[in-house]
């Protein structure tokens, strides 16, 4: 067993942590306060190779492995969850889904511009009446010659207003419930497609969260991702990829509030000593340090499994559940350690607390992950092989 990063992981980590510190940290608080999406970061992240980091070079990516995707997610959320969300949605939910399920023609046509960052992707599964209960979704897709006609709405969609390519899920056969769902790539500009933003959120103010409305949108069959009726599996496998980035991201959130708490607790004095010398404060610091390590080990195990091409739904769900709840607790304790200054926007730790709640809701609520883990533990659930698995990382193929 080897827990050490290889040289390229170390170099990626240094680069993206530098980037987060110099390009994102200094400005993101202001974007958050003003509820603005930091569009300027997209070309910069594209230039580094973040937008397609784990996609093979032949499809426009940077040709790195899945552990690198985790490293990038961790570093970005250290600066702000909204930036990591961009990668979760654009890369893990959209681009990687085309990579896993798309035809060669789709990889050339749709994946390559996503991986270079020339196009931005989003993922529309949730509807106002269907969140955890995916099979309850109501959007429909009706075959019409070589096209499908899509009707319905999507709600709570990250990057709804930003994305060029919108991967949405609709029922081609409503009678079949989750077996009747199919995935389609919509392109901005298609007639009948509109999007808008959701205001007044609790957190991720620097993210764009919105709705998608489809009013008889005509989508060519060549934009169908996977087979008819395969959409549920497509969506769940996409979530295996994105939950991994959420887990790694949450550990970056823990690191950020832990650093702030370690600093502040060694400056602030009460009762004649630094608050870091009070054991009750130490308890909170110790918990952050422990949970950071657990969260890190859990996401790194998933990255390793992905590199090996081993199915990781169970491990990913554990990593996501643990890390997002630990990030919420760490952020809450960080606010506590900062006292009234934690409650003000000045020190920024309250932003991490507001953001952390979202991550315990999206990509499977904590309760959904608890249910999943129980069914695995009880032996009631076994993952069957998919028609298209996420390919194991093969440096030669990735870099040709």
């Amino acid at each position, binding site marked *: 067993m080897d827990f050490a990063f290889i040289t390229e992981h170390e*170099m990626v980590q240094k680069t993206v942590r530098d980037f987060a510190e110099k390009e994102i940290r200094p400005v993101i608080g202001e974007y958050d306060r003003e509820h603005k999406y930091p569009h300027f970061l997209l070309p910069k992240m594209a230039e580094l190779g973040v937008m397609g980091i784990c996609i093979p070079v032949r499809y426009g990516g940077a040709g790195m492995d899945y552990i690198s995707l985790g490293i990038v997610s961790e570093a970005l959320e250290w600066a702000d969850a909204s930036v990591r969300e961009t990668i979760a949605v654009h890369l893990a939910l959209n681009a990687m889904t085309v990579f896993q399920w798309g035809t060669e023609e789709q990889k050339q046509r749709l994946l390559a511009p996503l991986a270079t960052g020339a196009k931005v992707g989003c993922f529309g599964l949730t509807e106002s009446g269907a969140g955890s209960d995916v099979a309850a979704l109501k959007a429909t897709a009706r075959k019409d010659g070589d096209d499908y006609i899509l009707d319905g709405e999507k709600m709570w969609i990250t990057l709804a207003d930003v994305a060029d390519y919108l991967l949405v899920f609709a029922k081609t056969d409503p009678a079949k419930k989750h077996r009747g769902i199919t995935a389609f790539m919509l392109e901005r500009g298609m007639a009948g497609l509109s999007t808008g933003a959701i205001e007044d959120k609790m957190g991720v103010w620097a993210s764009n969260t919105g709705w998608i409305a489809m009013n008889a949108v005509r989508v060519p069959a060549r934009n169908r991702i996977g087979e008819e009726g395969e959409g549920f599996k497509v969506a769940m496998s996409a979530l295996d990829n994105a939950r991994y980035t959420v887990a790694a991201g949450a550990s970056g959130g823990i690191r950020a509030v832990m650093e702030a708490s370690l600093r502040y607790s060694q400056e602030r004095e009460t009762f004649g000593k630094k608050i870091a010398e009070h054991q009750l404060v130490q308890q909170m610091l110790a918990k952050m340090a422990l949970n950071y390590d657990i969260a890190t080990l859990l996401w790194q195990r998933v990255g390793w499994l992905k590199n090996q091409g081993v199915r990781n739904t169970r491990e990913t769900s554990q990593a996501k559940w643990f890390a997002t709840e630990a990030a919420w607790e760490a952020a809450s304790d960080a606010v506590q350690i900062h006292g009234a200054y934690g409650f003000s926007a000045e020190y920024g730790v309250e932003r991490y607390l507001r953001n952390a709640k979202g991550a315990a809701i999206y990509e499977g609520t904590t309760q959904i992950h608890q249910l999943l883990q129980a069914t695995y533990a009880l032996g009631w659930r076994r993952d069957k092989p998919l028609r298209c698995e996420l390919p194991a990382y093969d440096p030669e193929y990735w870099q040709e």
Partner: protein
Amino acid sequence: MKYLVCVKQAPDTAELPKVKAEEAASGELSIQLVVNPWDEHALESAIQSSEDYGGSVGVITVGGEKAIDALRSGLAMGCAEATLIEDTEADAWGVATLLAAAIEQMGDVDLVFTGQLTVDGNSGMVPIALARKLGWPVLTGVAKIIEVTDDSIVVERVVGEARLTVKTQAPAVLSVIKEIGEPRYPTFIKIRKAARVKIPTLTASDLGVDAPAPVVQMDNYRKPPARDAHVQLFDNASDLVDALLAEKVL
């Protein structure tokens, strides 16, 4: 045009306060090492010049095995080749001796770029000693590259408060200041290649020189006295401005 950038793996300045005097004396630092920040600017300006005027950039360092990380950073930023000269004993004059021997052996280097200083040694000696060894002109305090031709370079130098536009023939040695340009981020594609490349290692004997004995002897290391920080309140703004001027803050 062939550029060569001399870099050094140096302590991260954010971690310098943690270094103990004994550690500094032994040379075995247990803190994070990074590319000397000034050298990152040298890398940037050489790579940018090669993009603007053509040519290729190499990167070289004198140091131990850990110094390879500095070379990989240079490759990831855009250098085409890297060389490690293995030596952990040399002082500034020794480093210059080894670098000069390597440059002579390469035979095709036109412009050598270095940072103005290293954050650990702080002497700024290496570029000057190197130019002396090679018998090439040296331009220090370079803030801007104005033009590169096949056999010359025009730069802007900062000397005190003056700015000079200077032309020199190549080959030459340049030491740059931070104003020359922010170092670029390495791209992941280049990182991947840089991480895997096998970097050639040379020793003094490979270069046909004797391992240079240090001419400078360090007898005593101690920490500078802690700065006396205090709070001062002023009755009016003009007194405050006078005080800031006196302290050369403004």
